[in-house]
């Protein structure tokens, strides 16, 4: 029996040709030297029964992808009588490399040029006769799809087979591929000696966990409850830590810093204590929450659950023109928008990437969370607080979905969605702590600069001109707040809150710091003052605006640098500002109309 191998680059129509030549008789079989099964079929060729083998599509005979190794091992272990090499005519300039590589093995060959119709449309003409004599092998144009040229190709194959040339000698081929074999062995030796695959749960355990976590109906509720519990966990541990740190910072101020500046001029002590120290202290008190947030986040990520979340959410995401990975990035945005925006680099489709980048700034990041926790603590009872916070998260998701749905026509995606599901892993404590620590460091180095500059700016604007009472409407800040009053009054946002919003442009971290300076109070005193000045409807409207409007300057800078488009950056700014205004307006006016 003769043996014919079918070889070519991926997507040249090799399987179509194989099916045409074999009819329905194909079967799957094992071959010496390789571990994957190959399709083969018995066909009549000339006067002989021949076995036709469909080899995997490869780009390079000397490459090291699994398929390329399979082809080499097959040729080094099995004698064959003829190779049919199939290439795509319209890419002949590129694909001839594979033909010439195989020719070097001195096997009887037939070269079939597929997709003739496509090549013709592209204006490509191939002088097959001259090429055949130059390459010393039959060269035949075919169309595997429509069957054109197939009889001629089969005839050429039959002619060669009938010449009864000696079959290939696997040992000689193996020698010719010596160098590649050497590299394979070296690769294997290096990997087994120096590479350690992390310990994973056994397949069974992962399967059993998946049966529950990816359950048809339980999966999504479990996912959202898990998120809710994680947030609860962060705050029930984080809030006492936060209070402790604030108490400590207060002692430093009253015990150390105030005596130190007692003799200095009022403007200097004001700048140092009310400006710089106040701002830094307010933000420092929120560091525990951020650490906890990223500890939990990296735990979820490293455990392998995030890819499962992508699986659960993809059907919904696809309807919005996004994919499950977009959802993962959106979730990351709940830590910080900036790394989430940078993370969209994994998407190769630019439209989908831009759409995801438009959506991410609407996710409730940890900086906005600080503002909400402070205001919720000031204006809502502890029993209502988690519900209010949860509703803000729901609102965040809602604005993201709305944005994606509205803009998906503009940014249409063509990228396939394929993700590996890793087995569940126990993240090591070291990994989690390292990650949490790095994120906090990153956050502090970036945030501190913004906060100090921002808070000093606020202090300046709320204390100057010197003729004005600090924090009053006569100061620069008050004047700016007044300027925006016609736009912000219908939202229930008063002058003081308006000033805080203006500085929230720089970074959300400074909103509370700004309020501390504006009211000249901090901590519990500031909370008490705010509870007197505004009611819960105003507070909610303010929080909705803060949630949706333009994210911090770092996010804006990242948007611009990642999209390489100022127009896109402006679109994001204008869209989020308008949406924030509309949502706050609708909420505030409806609540007032209902009598609250």
């Amino acid at each position, binding site marked *: 029996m003769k043996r014919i191998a079918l070889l070519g680059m991926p997507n040249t129509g090799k399987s179509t040709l194989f099916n045409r030549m074999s009819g329905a008789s194909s079967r*799957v079989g094992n071959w010496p030297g390789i571990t994957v099964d190959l399709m083969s079929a018995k066909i009549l060729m000339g006067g002989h029964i021949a076995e036709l083998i469909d080899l995997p599509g490869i780009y390079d005979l000397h490459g090291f992808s699994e398929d390329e190794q399979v082809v080499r091992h097959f040729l080094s272990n099995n004698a064959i009588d003829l190779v049919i090499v199939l290439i795509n005519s319209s890419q002949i300039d590129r694909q001839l490399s594979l033909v010439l590589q195989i020719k070097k093995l001195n096997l009887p060959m037939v070269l079939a040029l597929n997709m003739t119709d496509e090549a013709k449309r592209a204006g490509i003409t191939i002088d097959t006769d001259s090429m055949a004599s130059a390459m010393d092998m039959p060269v035949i144009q075919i169309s595997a799809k429509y069957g054109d040229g197939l009889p001629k190709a089969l005839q050429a194959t039959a002619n060669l087979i009938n010449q009864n040339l000696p079959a290939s000698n696997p040992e000689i081929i193996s020698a010719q591929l010596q160098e590649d074999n050497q590299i394979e062995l070296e690769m294997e030796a290096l990997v087994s000696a120096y590479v350690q695959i992390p310990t994973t749960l056994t397949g069974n355990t992962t399967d059993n966990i998946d049966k529950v976590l990816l359950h048809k109906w339980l999966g999504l509720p479990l996912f959202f409850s898990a998120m809710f519990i994680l947030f609860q966990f962060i705050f029930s541990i984080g809030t006492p830590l936060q209070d402790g740190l604030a108490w400590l910072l207060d002692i430093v101020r009253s015990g150390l810093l105030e005596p130190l500046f007692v003799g200095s001029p009022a403007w200097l002590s004001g700048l140092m204590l009310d400006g710089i120290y106040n701002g830094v202290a307010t933000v420092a008190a929120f560091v525990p929450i951020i650490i906890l947030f990223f500890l939990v986040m990296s735990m979820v990520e490293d455990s392998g659950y995030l*890819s499962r979340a992508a699986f659960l959410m993809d059907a919904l995401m696809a309807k919005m023109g996004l994919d499950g990975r977009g959802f993962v990035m959106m979730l990351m945005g709940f830590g910080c928008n900036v790394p989430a925006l940078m993370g969209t680099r994994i998407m190769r489709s630019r439209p989908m990437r831009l759409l995801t980048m438009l959506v991410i700034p609407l996710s409730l990041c940890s900086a906005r969370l600080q503002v909400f926790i402070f205001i919720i603590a000031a204006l809502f009872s502890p029993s209502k607080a988690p519900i209010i916070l949860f509703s803000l998260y729901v609102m965040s998701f809602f604005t993201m979905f709305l944005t994606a749905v509205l803009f998906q026509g503009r940014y249409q995606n063509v990228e396939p969605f394929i993700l590996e599901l890793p087995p569940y892993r126990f993240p090591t404590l070291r990994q989690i702590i390292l990650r949490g620590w790095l994120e906090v460091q990153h956050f502090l180095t970036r945030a501190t600069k913004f906060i100090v500059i921002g808070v000093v700016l606020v202090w300046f604007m709320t204390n100057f001109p010197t003729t004005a009472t600090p924090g009053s409407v006569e100061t620069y800040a008050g004047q700016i707040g007044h300027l925006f009053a016609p736009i912000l009054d219908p939202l229930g946002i008063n002058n003081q809150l308006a000033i805080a919003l203006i500085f929230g442009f720089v970074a959300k971290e400074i909103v509370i710091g700004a309020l501390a300076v504006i009211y000249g109070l901090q901590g519990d005193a500031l909370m008490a003052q705010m509870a007197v000045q505004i009611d819960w409807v105003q507070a909610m409207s303010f929080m909705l605006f803060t949630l949706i409007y333009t994210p911090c300057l770092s996010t804006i800078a990242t948007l611009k640098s990642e999209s390489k488009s100022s127009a896109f950056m402006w679109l994001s700014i204008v869209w989020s500002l308008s949406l924030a205004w509309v949502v706050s307006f609708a909420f505030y006016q409806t609540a007032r109309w209902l009598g609250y």
Partner: protein
Amino acid sequence: MQLLSQLPTGQSALISAIEADESLFHRLSALGFRVGKRLSIIRRANFNGPLHVRLGTTDVILRQVDADRIRINAQE
């Protein structure tokens, strides 16, 4: 010969052809999809969501549209 998306959940089949453009083909092949390999569908997400496919020791999720680029042989 049928499409991967037509394979009933829990059953296995052999890949008989992958008809995808170059980038999708690269992605699939990097994850271990190749002609002759056995795969099975572990589960499907609701609302026509992605398929959870297993090839050997690798678990992969992919959408139905992309799964339709993979032809399978389910006779055995």
